[in-house]
């Protein structure tokens, strides 16, 4: 356990030295406030840059606070996932490729600790960035439209975080299995987006699928209650996260580290 914390501390030090602790939270916050701001100021923006003929009347229906908040979540669904993938795609393969892993693993370091400490470091970074980002979104929505109950925010956060952690763990698994970070990025992005696409059209067949979690969060925010399949979907997300992590450790163990 002691060794695990030494490894985790190193992950934190590395993430602060390469400024991940700066740019990831900032990007998540910017993504979070983008939609409340743009939808609130949209009429003015169109007015000032639109160059429309005189007398044009544009009517934009005023979105509800919940809708604005849901819109900002959809930013995470695209750009947020891209950031997660790009910032962690080399999490395991990077050290193997550079060769530094040879110096670390000839020390009596357990493979379990090595992988899980890296995973935990990234998890803390992503989940706290997401928290800050969603909090900023919630706050701006509140200031510009109306404040949603804080419990709505919390409910949306945990379910959404569960989904993004699953994506993150998939990245860790691919990074342990594939040598090239670019391959990791491609495999995870394609998997996630294809599943999302399929999930969007086959809502019935996939109602227990973790990919439906973002959808269920939207439902929770608009109808004020969880749809019935949230619990199996959330449970499966946790189960898959665990399974991916175990697979990552096993794969990493079996791989020969020296080449």
């Amino acid at each position, binding site marked *: 356990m002691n060794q695990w914390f030494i490894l985790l501390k190193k992950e934190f030090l590395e993430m602060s030295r390469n400024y991940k602790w700066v740019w990831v939270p900032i990007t998540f916050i910017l993504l979070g406030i983008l939609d409340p701001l743009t939808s609130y100021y949209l009429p003015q923006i169109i007015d000032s840059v639109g160059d429309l003929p005189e007398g044009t009347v544009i009517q934009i229906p005023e979105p509800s606070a919940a809708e604005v908040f849901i819109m900002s979540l959809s930013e995470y669904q695209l750009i947020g996932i891209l950031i997660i993938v790009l910032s962690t795609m080399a999490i395991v393969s990077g050290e193997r490729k550079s060769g530094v892993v040879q110096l*670390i693993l000839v020390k009596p370091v357990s493979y379990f600790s090595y992988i899980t400490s890296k995973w935990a470091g990234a998890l803390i970074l992503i989940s706290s960035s997401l928290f800050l980002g969603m909090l900023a979104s919630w706050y701006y929505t509140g200031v510009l439209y109306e404040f949603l109950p804080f419990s709505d925010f919390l409910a949306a956060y945990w379910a959404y975080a569960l989904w993004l952690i699953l994506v993150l763990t998939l990245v860790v698994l691919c990074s342990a299995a594939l040598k090239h970070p670019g391959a990791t990025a491609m495999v995870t992005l394609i998997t996630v987006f294809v599943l999302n696409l399929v999930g969007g059209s086959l809502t019935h067949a996939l109602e227990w699928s973790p990919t439906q979690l973002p959808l269920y969060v939207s439902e929770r925010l608009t109808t004020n209650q969880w749809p019935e399949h949230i619990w199996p979907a959330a449970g499966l997300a946790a189960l898959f996260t665990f399974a991916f992590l175990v697979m990552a450790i096993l794969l990493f163990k079996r791989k020969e580290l020296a080449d």
Partner: protein
Amino acid sequence: MALVRVDNLVKNFKEMKVIKGLDFELEAGKCVALIGANGAGKTTTLKMLAGLLDPTEGTIEFEGEEKVGDHRKLIGYLPQHPVFYEWMTAREFLEYVGKLSGLSVKEAKERTEELLELVGISDAKNRKIGKFSGGMKQRLGIAQAIIHRPKLIMLDEPVSALDPLGRREVLELLDKLKLEATVLFSTHILNDAEEVCESILFLHNGEIIESGTMEQFREKYQQSKIDLVFKGCAENFVEKFANNDDVISIKHEGNKASLYVRDLEAAKVSILNSAVDENWPLYKFEISSISLEEVFMKVVQK
């Protein structure tokens, strides 16, 4: 008492047989050189001993290993091209690997200071490793290999990439390390091996073709040989010995000549007699002993 016992070690990469059954033992407290040409399998052998590669067949047993197959506490390893976390400072890195090896925070700090001093990079201890020169990285590499006082220190070509000065310093360092642990290092520079090590393993095409101490090699491969250096062309003076019964063969090149002889004493007398009688312009007369390089050439050609 053997510290490590290697039994029928085989390694295949796909269809290629890189290591074809090694058997050897490393005795505690000895310095052993692993010698071989490029591609002979030195690095692969060391990596298997370090646990970074799994052997296809065979076993590696360490005396006093806690868990079967995991002897990492007992070894220190320096790869041929060590790579570090470039964003760490030398001190941070040593403390980090020290703690990973099971030292307490305090021990790791003390040991780090001690080793930075020993390998001679304490001036640069707070500099980022990314800014280090090759020689400094090599020293840091040695420091990280010995931080937890391993019983076996394995160094893969520790001096090949260094300039003459750095090479000398590292060899002196190896001399010091010998006092504390068994040292196994690979090299293709024979002089280095001859200088530091008692014991030598010759690796060729994935097999150990010869092993032993320098003295054993001398006895086994010593050929009585007399080296002569002349002022002027050597050929004219030595060619008449070609028919001499004591002489096996003659090699000459420019002003140098080597005579391989059967009976050293008899040959010595007849050569020196001719030298005096014919008033040879002789610069040098030497009864030579065999060098590691010659042993290497011989065992490889066998």
